[in-house]
């Protein structure tokens, strides 16, 4: 893992177990960047169970240093609470020895809808959280989750969380903060990077210059100077 340029910006490393990402809503692309960075460092594919359009490929395609990276993210989208639940139930079979990461954005989203009775919401979220716990115990891989809201409903999910990473938006750009981790604001803004999407693009290009260079030779990465 030491093939990265020494002055490259840091991103949190995802360890085995459940990591909760708490990102500022305006920090678009934080989740996608963590996922892409992880699969570029590790070899196996990621399994992504999507809710409420987080898996919109647009952001991911924009941030990815290479379109080929997208082949390494396997996604199935839920459109109802029941589909989400059965995707979670099927995860133990979907995930195999190759899988290097499981991504579960907006884990609670479907369990908040009017389609469900109140008791059912709680029951289904609890069952979902238990499935995640089992998955974490069975496979030594990182599971990255986000939640829409921190409240009583999502307490069972948080009980399964091993690490919390926050992504906050500073006026110089986004930065990550974790229990044992605090990233600097990356000095690549210099007034040129206007959007967070462009920011993540630069971060990933800088951290994975070989992949970026192979597919986008016209882009000179900051780290190469």
């Amino acid at each position: 893992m030491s093939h990265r340029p020494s002055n490259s910006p840091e991103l949190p490393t995802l360890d085995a177990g459940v990591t909760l990402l708490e990102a500022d809503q305006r920090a678009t692309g934080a989740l996608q960047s963590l996922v892409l960075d992880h699969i570029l460092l590790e070899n196996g594919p990621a399994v992504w169970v999507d809710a409420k359009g987080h898996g919109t490929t647009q952001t991911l395609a924009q941030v990815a240093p290479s379109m080929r990276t997208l082949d390494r993210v396997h996604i199935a989208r839920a459109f109802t609470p029941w589909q989400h639940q059965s995707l979670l139930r099927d995860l133990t079979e979907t995930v195999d020895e190759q899988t290097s990461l499981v991504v579960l954005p907006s884990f609670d989203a479907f369990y908040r809808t009017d389609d469900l009775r109140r008791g059912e919401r709680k029951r289904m979220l609890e069952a979902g959280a238990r499935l995640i716990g089992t998955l974490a115990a069975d496979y030594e891989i990182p599971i990255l989750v986000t939640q829409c809201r921190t409240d009583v409903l999502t307490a069972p999910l948080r009980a399964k969380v091993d690490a919390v990473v926050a992504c906050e938006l500073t006026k110089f750009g986004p930065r990550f903060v974790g229990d044992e981790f605090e990233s600097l604001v990356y000095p690549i803004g210099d007034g040129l990077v206007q959007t967070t999407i462009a920011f993540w693009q630069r971060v990933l290009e800088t951290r994975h210059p070989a992949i970026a260079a192979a597919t986008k030779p016209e882009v000179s990465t900051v780290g190469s100077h």
Partner: protein
Amino acid sequence: MPFKIDYRDGDVLEWTLTDDGAEYVRNSSYTPTLYVSVHGRADLVDLYGTLRDHPDVVHARTVEKRIGFRYDSESVLRVDVTSLDAVTTLAHEISGWAKPGDYRLYNVDFSREFRYCLERDLSPIPERELSVMELAVDESVLAADCLTKLLVDEERLSGDPEAVLAKLSQRVTDTDPDVLMLNTSEVVPALYQAAESCDFDEFQLGRLPEWQQLAGESTYASYGRVGHSPARFNVPGRAIVDRSNTFFWSQSNLDGCIDLVERSGKPLQELAWASIGTILTAMQIREARRRNVLVPWHSWRHEQLKTMRQLHEADRGGFTFAPDVGLHEDVHELDFSSLYPNIIVSRNVSPEKIRCECHAGREDVPGLGYCICDERGYLPDVLEPLITDRETMKTELRETDDAERIVELEGRSSAIKWILVSCFGYQGFSNAKFGRIECHEAINAFAREILLDTKETLEANGWRVVHGIVDSVWVTAVEGEEQTPLAEITEIVTADVGIRLEYEAHYDWIAFVPLRNSEAGALTKYFGKVAAEDDYKYRGIECRQRSTPQFIATAQKDMIEALDEHRDVKAVCEQLKRWLQRLQAGTLDVSELVITNRVSKPLDEYTRTTRNVAALERAETRGLCRNPGQNVDYVVVDDSKQTADRVALATEGVEEYDIEFYRKQLIRAAESVLSPLGWREADITQYLADYKDISLQTFGEG
């Protein structure tokens, strides 16, 4: 066969039409049925043991059924329950007995009449022509709670409530209608309450005493829009149609509705208030039953994993060429006939056949790499008769001159059209019982390929494509090139694609409108002059929008006519000036300036002070109830205000209006007409300002 089913006192009444009325057969032994499948570690025998002694259960036993179109038969539990209400309560109860997803339920949420017909194999087609009675009570009379006048078959009955009810009652007895067509379903409780307050005990609207409320009013969100669903009522032996709550009757006619009764198995009353999706679902439920397939209560089946790259391809949506912004002379429109349904039928796009295991690895869907099974799917079987029947109707329509037959065929054809138009969107709709997102993606992928191939063929034959959306292309001849006649090209494409490409229309000119703040074309904003006819086509511009005041719409159409006549920006601006002068004189009939807007949420949920909010506030202080999904009509009287005085309701009868506000609206409407020719709002206001300067100058000199 019955045309109406009533549930009364635990029994079911099947109403059959007779030569001079209707009669019923009472069924006291009907027990609705639901099914349960078990998954995970749950056990069928355990469940059977529990259910056998349940008070709501009449009978439970193991049967062999398919839990979905893509499954073979397996053992499930068939549960016959005591009553209709027990179906839902028991379903909730059972699903709570194990981990979510361990017990899955089927055949739970059917509408009541439909369920009965389905389970008893009855086809609710009326056996003779139905007699209809029209009954209307004014909204203000309903609000006043004093029934002094109403309309029966366009005849006005008035007087004190007792007299009105007596006359109505007599009329109902004399004519004995099969269908009650009401202007709003609220008429039912209003009439019975009025009868109660004047002790008119024997008053009845049905063929037996008493009435029932089937559903309360509600607000729902569908496809991102908020709708309002009025309460529903039932009277024995007659079908109620609520004019304010019937899609199919309003879009077709009785013939169209009866056609769909036959196809969907939904009795007339339920068909009348059903949405397109409900009817399409009913057709698929019938097909499922024919194939021993159960109907899932909740959609547990999820999509299969795909790579983000595949999703990226699939996410591209419906097909569009970027419109060539501007005014094009001599344009021809070509349309594929029922493109999406025909793709489903000819490419075998069916939820249970797409991405099948038996042909994994074969890339049948262009760009997505999904395989499709060689075995024919059920969805093509459901849709094909709709397509061919409609073709036959259209052929007969072209040939017949029997006026009655024409009305019938047109009604039936347009009822089917709506089902066909929606079958594609249904596949992508999250709550669709039988939808599957991969079908939605595949249909799009096929459509894209078909349109691109068509474009190539056209271009190779001397034509230029100026725009294309979904299933239509607009072409002009390339100057200096020889053109293969379009009639020939449509033949070639039809043979290649296997779906008919039709010559739709010829326009003298057509103008594609750019987006308001961009040079790029808006996909569905255009207007044009139909060749050899005194007719124009408008799409997406102000005069087509529901909310646009009549005055603005008329002005815009007039400016388009000026454009047709002169093909000149200034001629249109001169026309605009005339309309501005009419507006500024302040003498317009205010009814021409009424804006109609749909309420999207309750008043207290609005956070910004918009004109809509002002109108809602005014409605509220006047005791007029406006629910989300309903319309509110208002005139802008002073747009600078933030209070309810910003607008006046259409019904208030005000005579003044905010000239400046409507002036801006006029200029916006003019911009839509002129922006294809490169003139934007700034150019128009500049032109108007210059004119003002000139006229002042002229005035000063004179």
